[in-house]
């Protein structure tokens, strides 16, 4: 085994160890340790990606001295590497960009703890991406749930506290469902490692045994993860949580945490249950229904908002709906489109959240659309970043969002019967609604300020400007290399099974 193959293990351990070390460090050191750790992980992955490309397949990494059905394992493949790299970049840029705002919004002694939580989320994200073991996934889901709750309420106002209570309740219901699903899986197969479970379930599927429990398992996993991602009927906590917590926290929660959960679901479909079993199962329709509902209703919720951050938060609901609906479509093309959109949306939504908060600062700390008029002139770089992100979400050509819409449409057309019609209609309607609320906002940013608006002095931070420019460049690059990325993802999905 070459040294480079240890990268997943090194990244996870690095994140965990820096989380453990942070509480005893002074606040400044904690901050830079966290940033340094995330950048180290990004660098490790940049080293790792070419290796995985030349390596071709995937490999298992034993955590300890015992092979597959006995010990814990990690598994590295192309898709995992791409997702981990993308989400680590999001994490790094979010931390840097939200740093100044965070120092003003969170009590000084508690800032160190904030970075502990960031490190833990990083560890959880990496582990959920790379793990080859269902029970490890459960443990790290709980770590993610606790630490994202802490991130949410880091800025302690009434909204975030009530939202985090609601989040905890829903999230624990979700964990309960996932744990029952894992217990059922263990009961049927006697294994916890993904490949071994897959072998046994494939055997059952071939001779038609235990069809009902397998359906139930799929349904429970879908319901559990849907609750945790905050798609439509379970989204009550989301607008308050994302809308009032500090901007770095909102960016991390919407882009890293929910994406990691979603990727775990895809992994479970491909590697635990087997995609052919899943695709022929009735339970998948649950995903389609949840997805379409949250696509439409999330957008409608966004239109009804008077406050820019709640609008961006609601837009998150609708975008998670896209991912669910296109997995629910039940074809490989749909999964590839969803994975591409996962990357695009992670980069885009975090940029939106992070550019909104300087714009609000420039408008006298108000989040209402009326006061935000002309903010694009007052603070140029965040204005451009927001417009870029909004245009990408709407699907203006050359940007990443445009390509994901194209891939979505292609995948939907390849579907059959009423599913095709529903998805195409939902895509059209949701894009229209998206365009309405995002363009409305962007145009508002470049209008004359309302009369009687007094321009108040605000702090311009160089760090925020630089990171937002990098964010913008990354988003442009995604559109530029869309074809390559989708090729990577398609190969990765083939390797996943």
């Amino acid at each position, binding site marked *: 085994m070459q040294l480079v193959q240890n990268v997943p293990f090194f990244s996870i351990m690095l994140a965990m160890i820096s989380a453990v070390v942070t509480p005893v460090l002074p606040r400044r050191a904690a901050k830079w340790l966290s940033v340094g750790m995330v950048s180290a992980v990004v660098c490790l992955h940049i080293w790792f990606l070419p290796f995985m490309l030349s390596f071709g397949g995937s490999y298992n990494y034993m955590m300890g001295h015992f092979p597959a059905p006995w010990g814990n394992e990690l598994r590295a493949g192309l898709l995992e590497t791409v997702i981990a790299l993308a989400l680590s970049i999001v994490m790094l840029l979010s931390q840097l960009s939200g740093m100044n705002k965070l120092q003003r919004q969170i009590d000084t002694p508690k800032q160190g703890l904030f970075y502990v939580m960031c490190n833990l989320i990083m560890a959880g994200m990496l582990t959920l991406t790379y793990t080859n073991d269902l*029970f490890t996934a459960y*443990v790290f889901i*709980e770590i993610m*749930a*606790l630490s994202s*709750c802490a991130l949410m*309420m880091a800025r*302690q106002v*009434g*909204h975030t*506290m*009530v939202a*985090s*209570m*609601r989040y*905890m*309740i829903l999230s*624990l*219901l979700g964990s*309960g469902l996932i*744990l*029952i699903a894992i*217990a059922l899986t*263990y*009961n049927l197969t006697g294994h*916890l490692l993904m490949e071994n479970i897959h072998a046994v379930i494939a055997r059952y599927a071939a001779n038609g045994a235990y069809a009902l429990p397998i359906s139930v398992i799929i349904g429970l996993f879908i319901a559990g993860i849907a609750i945790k991602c905050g798609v439509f009927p379970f989204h009550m906590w989301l607008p*308050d949580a994302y809308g009032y917590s500090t901007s770095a926290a909102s960016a991390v929660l919407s882009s890293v945490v929910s994406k990691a959960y979603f990727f775990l679901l895809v992994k479970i479909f491909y590697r635990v249950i087997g995609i052919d079993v899943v695709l022929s199962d009735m339970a998948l329709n649950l995903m389609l229904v949840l997805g379409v509902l949250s696509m439409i209703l999330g957008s409608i919720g966004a239109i009804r908002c008077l406050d820019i951050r709640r609008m961006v938060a609601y837009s998150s609901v609708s975008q998670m709906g896209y991912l669910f609906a296109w997995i629910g479509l039940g074809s490989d093309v749909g999964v590839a489109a969803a994975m591409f959109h996962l990357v695009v949306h992670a980069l885009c939504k975090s940029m939106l959240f992070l550019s909104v908060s300087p714009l609000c600062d420039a408008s006298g700390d108000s989040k209402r659309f009326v006061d935000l008029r002309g903010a694009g002139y007052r603070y140029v770089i965040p204005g451009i970043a927001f417009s870029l992100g909004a245009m990408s979400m709407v699907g203006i050509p050359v940007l990443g969002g445009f390509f994901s819409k194209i891939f979505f449409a292609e995948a939907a057309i390849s579907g059959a019967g009423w599913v095709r019609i529903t998805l195409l209609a939902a895509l059209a309607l949701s894009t229209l609604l998206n365009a309405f609320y995002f363009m409305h906002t962007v145009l508002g940013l470049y209008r004359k300020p309302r009369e009687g608006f007094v321009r108040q002095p605000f702090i311009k931070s160089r760090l925020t400007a630089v990171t937002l420019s990098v964010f913008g460049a990354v988003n442009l690059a995604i559109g530029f290399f869309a074809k390559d990325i989708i090729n990577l993802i398609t190969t990765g999905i083939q390797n996943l099974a």
Partner: protein
Amino acid sequence: MGDILSLLWTHLDVTVAILLFGIGFTTLLLHHNLIKKIIGLNIMETATFLFLTSQGFIAGRAAPVLAEGAAAAGYVNPIPSGLVLTGIVVSVSVTAVMLALTIRLYRRYHTLDIDSMTLMMKGEDE
């Protein structure tokens, strides 16, 4: 009907676990009081653990603390016990965090009812 009942009787442990899960789930979802919700959460989690543990049980075998010279076929399956051990610790930490949140919320809103909390929170917004 009799068939189903006898089947449920042979799976008695698991059936009770599912019923307890239902009770806990319903309490967690429907009860207004936060403390009750947390107790419901605990019941739900222990029910899941009971479900897991009962799968490791093999009638007539002993706990997996190995004695010298005993046959390997004399012990129950140790895996579910290990998993549940992990689960219990997760459940106590989650409970502690929920209780801490409850205290903070009570200090702010002076109620344990999550719906009135939400109403007051919306009131702050106007």
